[in-house]
């Protein structure tokens, strides 16, 4: 060390010449655009930057938006048709909270008008070990976006070392769907699950209209009025697991009995303190219905 050392120091002051220097809002995104880091040719357009930031924040994935030229005329030509299509979410799904957790019960029919496509569809989507989503409306829409939700939940868990709660997950799903509001998505879905760190379970209804509500009991689909009838008349918070499963099954089979767009098999899941469990994977609804009510409900009076 030589005491006073005078050094000729040539610093790079070219940043002062940069036309971008001194622009306001350089705290805007935390990534300053400076002469040190990029050449003029490398600078992205404002739109691209916004898009990239959007992508990196995980709020949306980089899907191309549906072409307005195709979608809008369809929507405009028959507004009534789209409304009807919305209500003809040919299915019955239900979920309710009770003292021992949440019961989620669904049917398994996929129909296109009067054509029954399948009686064995899986309408409960296992998002992860502690979250379930139900499907009503467009099967592809539900399945796809709930898969994206699963990805988002997993990324959140990896990035922040904590599991995303049901509340957060349902909001993320809503954020994803809301970007396509009015463009033809058809989804009526429930997000049900347990927050393992606090032990609280939660149930949310998320809709392609952009609605998201928390609740204790929901039923979605064309068979929901019938399911609601059964549920509302017999629901109690204090039920044993068996009673609750029976109630869920009863509601589904009564709905499938009266609604042609619902049927097939009934699947029942139970969400408990540490995750979810399949109670019934496939119970044939018509066999079950006749077993429970067949003899009493034989109304045919043949002359």
């Amino acid at each position: 060390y030589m005491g006073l050392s005078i050094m000729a120091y040539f610093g790079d002051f070219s940043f002062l010449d940069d036309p971008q220097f001194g622009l306001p809002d350089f705290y805007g995104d935390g990534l300053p655009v400076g002469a040190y880091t990029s050449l003029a040719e490398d600078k992205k357009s404002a739109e691209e930057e916004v898009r990239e930031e959007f992508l990196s924040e995980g709020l949306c994935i980089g899907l191309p938006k549906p072409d307005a030229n195709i979608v809008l005329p369809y929507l405009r030509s028959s507004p009534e048709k789209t409304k009807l299509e919305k209500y003809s979410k040919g299915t019955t799904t239900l979920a309710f909270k009770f003292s021992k957790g949440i019961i989620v019960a669904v049917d398994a029919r996929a129909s296109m008008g009067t054509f029954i496509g399948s009686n064995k569809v899986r309408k409960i989507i296992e998002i992860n070990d502690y979250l379930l989503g139900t499907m009503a409306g467009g099967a592809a829409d539900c399945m796809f976006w709930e898969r994206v939700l699963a990805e988002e939940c997993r990324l959140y868990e990896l990035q922040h070392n904590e599991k995303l709660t049901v509340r957060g997950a349902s909001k993320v799903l809503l954020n994803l769907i809301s970007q396509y509001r009015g463009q033809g998505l058809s989804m009526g879905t429930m997000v049900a699950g347990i927050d393992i760190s606090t032990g609280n379970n939660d149930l949310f209804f998320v809709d392609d209209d952009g609605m998201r509500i928390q609740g204790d009991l929901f039923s979605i689909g064309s068979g929901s009025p019938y399911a609601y009838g059964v549920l509302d008349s017999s629901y109690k918070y204090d039920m044993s697991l068996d009673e609750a499963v029976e109630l869920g099954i009863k509601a589904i089979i009564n709905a499938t009995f009266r609604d042609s767009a619902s049927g097939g098999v009934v699947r029942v899941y139970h969400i408990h303190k540490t995750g979810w469990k399949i109670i019934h994977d496939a119970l044939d609804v018509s066999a079950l219905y006749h077993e429970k009510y067949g003899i009493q409900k034989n109304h045919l009076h043949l002359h």
Partner: protein
Amino acid sequence: VSTQSTWGLLILKRMSNRYDAAVTKFSPSGHLFQVDYAFEAVKRGACAVGIKTKDSVILGVERKSMPKLQESGTIKKIFQLDKHLAMACAGLTADARMLTQRTVLECQQYRLTYDQQPSVNYIAKYVAKMKQRYTQVGGRRPFGISSLIMGFDQTKEPMLYLTEPSGSYSLWKASAIGHNAKNVTELLEKKYKDGLSHEEGVKLVIEGLLEVVESGNKNMEIAYMKNDEKLIKMKDEEVKSLIEVVEKEKSPPAAPGAVPIPKQQHNMTNLHFY
């Protein structure tokens, strides 16, 4: 030596460190000198102590004497970030202000995206991420701030995080930042126990701060937070009475002949550092 310069010479009167003027360059020994110097800036800030107890988190800060004509209340050290989060910074006041503004915004954006309160870990990580960016990108200087971030999670557990100008963050039971923080940390290591009650915690914070405040002035500010409650700033009279209690309870003075470690006095009227 860059040949792009058209602006002339800078004459430096210190040990030759041609790597210390630019943040984004490592030195041959592997240092980022600007980051190291940022730590020095933190040491010039007033001391802040944070302690986690059984059911609360307590922040205590050394309050510097205001110039006579200045009206109190404009320079803050303890910031409330959200209903369940608070932060105390040590270092450059302006940097602290910008940091808290960005963090408050992030809390609300998180609430909008996820419809729930951000966890303390998330916010601490966010602050740390922001600090780290300024050590790597753009050639701008790092934040001259260390911060203690405290709050409660959904699990109702108290949390205390420390973030540093380098962008590192860590979880602590008790910590101190700023001027003379080393003395305080030594005391905390000796006296901290798991499962302290709230009252014991407040006394420990006061004891820690008494190590560093200007004797005779004893000016300090204490704020605490309990689960599901917002930040509460203790009243000055309450703090003063507790200081008296703590001073009475303090252990007797050292044996004659022992030389106490001298407190480093520093110029506290420099308003850039707080």
